[in-house]
């Protein structure tokens, strides 16, 4: 994490608490070094993502500030159901907001019950402690009525965020009525964006926006396919990083960078070069989002000698799956296609949610995974409740599942490690002890 520019005046202007923000960046830099830079045999083109992470609160934030100065709007969101295409259509910039670190928990608990999931506490904490430059750089922050925790938390958050704030209503069934709710939410969102930006959404600008995001998703599909190779050419941590950066980087530059990465990985696959030997235990992670900088579980999994080859997660498949059909001639047709793409996402907030388990099994099979680890944040009722159902279905399909509930704290790392190690031993099907290098 090298800092070449002094961003402190910008952070100050954005109203950040510089001391706390320094503490956050120091912890982040330390964690990034320990988790990412210590990995062996990384693809060279990951250098771009290292640079992006090094500048996570620097250059990218400056770009947002510059974009606003040039008259573009900046919109922040917390969820894969907020369609970036609409923001891009009005010439805006869409960014995912900080929600992946145990920071400001005490401040958050002044407003939230203790038994609230870590993700919600985190975005409250970042906001209350004034350490998120992204929120400060936004014209509009968008919530969404997904789980009960978020929808009730947004009632309080609306008064704390200090920016214009709106909540997209969300359906909870995959019915005709449900689709209509999502469509209405997207029409409301589009109207709000037009109003805020002064730009009217047209077939032309919406088609161009759809193509921009489709290109980004296509690049991620390419990355996902390359990870199916054995030996796998990239670590799960590095692939997760690309999935995390997906949510806040400039879309065009991001797509180009992922494609550069894929070019390198293609060569690796052709030469049978991997980050771990062929035959290494392969894991798919399924469940709750892993927002930056939540790298805890993947770091544990890969420290046991296994490799993660796919993520059935918001930061992963749910964010990148499927494309929007951009062939419509009118805004109305394009909006229908947009709703279709997002309505197909099988998030656990839907009841019932019958496609998620078969989808997870399919990902595991496509990735040639030996096992699935279901990751649920504590107090995330939708994913915790769905876990046993998913476990049963996926195991019926012949893939063992380990269910883990955790949060962003580090107190349970050793307990998690024991479970993960035992699961990897189980999948490896052998009993030889692990030889330690030290």
């Amino acid at each position, binding site marked *: 994490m090298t800092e070449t520019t002094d961003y402190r005046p910008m952070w100050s202007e954005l109203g950040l608490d510089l001391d706390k923000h320094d503490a956050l960046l120091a912890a982040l830099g330390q964690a990034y070094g320990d988790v990412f830079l210590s990995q062996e045999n990384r693809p060279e083109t990951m250098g771009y993502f290292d640079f992006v992470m090094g500048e996570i609160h620097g250059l990218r934030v400056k770009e947002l500030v510059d974009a606003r100065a040039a008259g573009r709007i900046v919109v922040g969101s917390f969820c894969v159901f907020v369609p970036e295409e609409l923001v891009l259509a009005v010439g805006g910039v869409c960014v995912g907001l900080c929600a992946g670190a145990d920071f400001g928990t005490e401040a958050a608990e002044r407003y939230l019950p203790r038994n609230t999931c870590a993700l919600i506490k985190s975005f409250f904490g970042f906001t209350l402690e004034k350490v998120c430059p992204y929120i400060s750089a936004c014209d509009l922050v968008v919530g969404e009525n997904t789980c009960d925790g978020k929808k009730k938390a947004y009632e309080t958050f609306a008064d704390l965020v200090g920016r214009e704030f709106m909540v997209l209503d969300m359906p909870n069934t995959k019915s005709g009525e449900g689709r209509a709710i999502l469509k209405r939410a997207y029409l409301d969102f589009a109207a709000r964006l037009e109003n805020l930006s002064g730009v009217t959404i047209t077939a032309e600008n919406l088609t161009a926006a759809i193509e921009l995001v489709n290109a980004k998703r296509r690049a991620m599909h390419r990355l996902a396919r390359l990870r199916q190779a054995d030996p796998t050419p990239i670590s799960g941590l590095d692939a997760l990083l690309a999935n995390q950066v997906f949510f806040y980087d400039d879309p065009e530059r991001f797509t180009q960078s992922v494609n550069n990465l894929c070019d390198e990985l293609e060569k690796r696959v052709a030469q049978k070069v991997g980050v771990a030997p062929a035959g290494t235990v392969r894991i798919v992670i399924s469940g709750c989002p892993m927002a930056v900088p939540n790298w805890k579980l993947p770091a544990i999994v890969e420290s046991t000698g296994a490799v993660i080859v796919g993520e059935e997660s918001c930061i992963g498949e749910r964010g990148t799956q499927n494309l929007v059909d951009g062939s419509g001639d009118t805004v109305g047709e394009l909006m229908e296609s947009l709703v279709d793409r997002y309505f197909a996402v099988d998030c656990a907030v839907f009841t019932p949610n019958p496609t998620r388990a078969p989808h997870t099994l399919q990902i595991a*099979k496509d990735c040639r995974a030996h096992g699935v680890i279901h990751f649920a944040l504590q107090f995330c009722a939708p994913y915790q409740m769905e876990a046993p159902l998913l476990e049963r279905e996926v195991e019926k399909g012949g893939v063992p599942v380990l269910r883990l509930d955790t949060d962003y704290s580090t107190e349970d790392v050793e307990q998690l490690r024991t479970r993960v190690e035992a699961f990897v*031993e189980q999948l*490896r099907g052998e009993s030889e002890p692990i030889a*330690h290098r030290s």
Partner: protein
Amino acid sequence: MRVIGLDIGSRTVKRVTLEDGVVVDHSVVPGSHDPLAVCDGVLAGQRPDRVVATGYGRRLFAEHRQAETLTEIRAVALGARHLRPTTRTVLDIGGQDTKVVALGADGAVAKFEMNDRCAAGTGRFLEVMATALSYPMDQFVQAGREADTAQPVHAMCTVFAESEVISATARGVDRAALARGLHEAVVRRSVAMLRRVALEDDIVFCGGGALNACLHQLIAESLGRQVHLPPHPQIVAALGAALSVNSPARSPRRVQ
């Protein structure tokens, strides 16, 4: 070849020494705030060719001493299977965690579960409750076995349960009934875990908790099944760790 299996648990450190695959010696000593020092004491004069560490202290030990590691899940599976080749289910109640391991017909681990991050329903829980009732451990167990009635205890958190027990004694509730109720609470939790993970015969009960005759009796009654006790239930994981050195490796299972 002399192989030592070392199970570095939260309350005790267990050692099993194998000479060419045959158990020649074992020991169980209390743990301390300095597990490395305890382990050094346990290994003094042993001169092993290889040491395999398991239990929560395995990583610390392997980082500072010459050792390989194995999780306690795999270790109890190997140990129980060696002692009873028809084992399909292992219940291990230790000092700070409880685990259930399901084994396939071939002895491979098919599924496992461990209790959550706190010590609810483990050996430590019962130790704290015995103290709250001013019983030495053996009398606590005996009182539980002989009690005519059980006073149900609902809290499973060790701290909350202690408050519940103290409130009950302050109301004049018979302490033997409480001893029984506390054992039943641990049994309910263990049996629920067994039902979730596996209940194939033979069932083997090990770990320090298996020294508790009241737990053993109530678990067998609650399941209506025979629950087998190894001769030295505390050293099963240490035995498995030592045995792992000679167990054959198989290639990873592959999904089609």
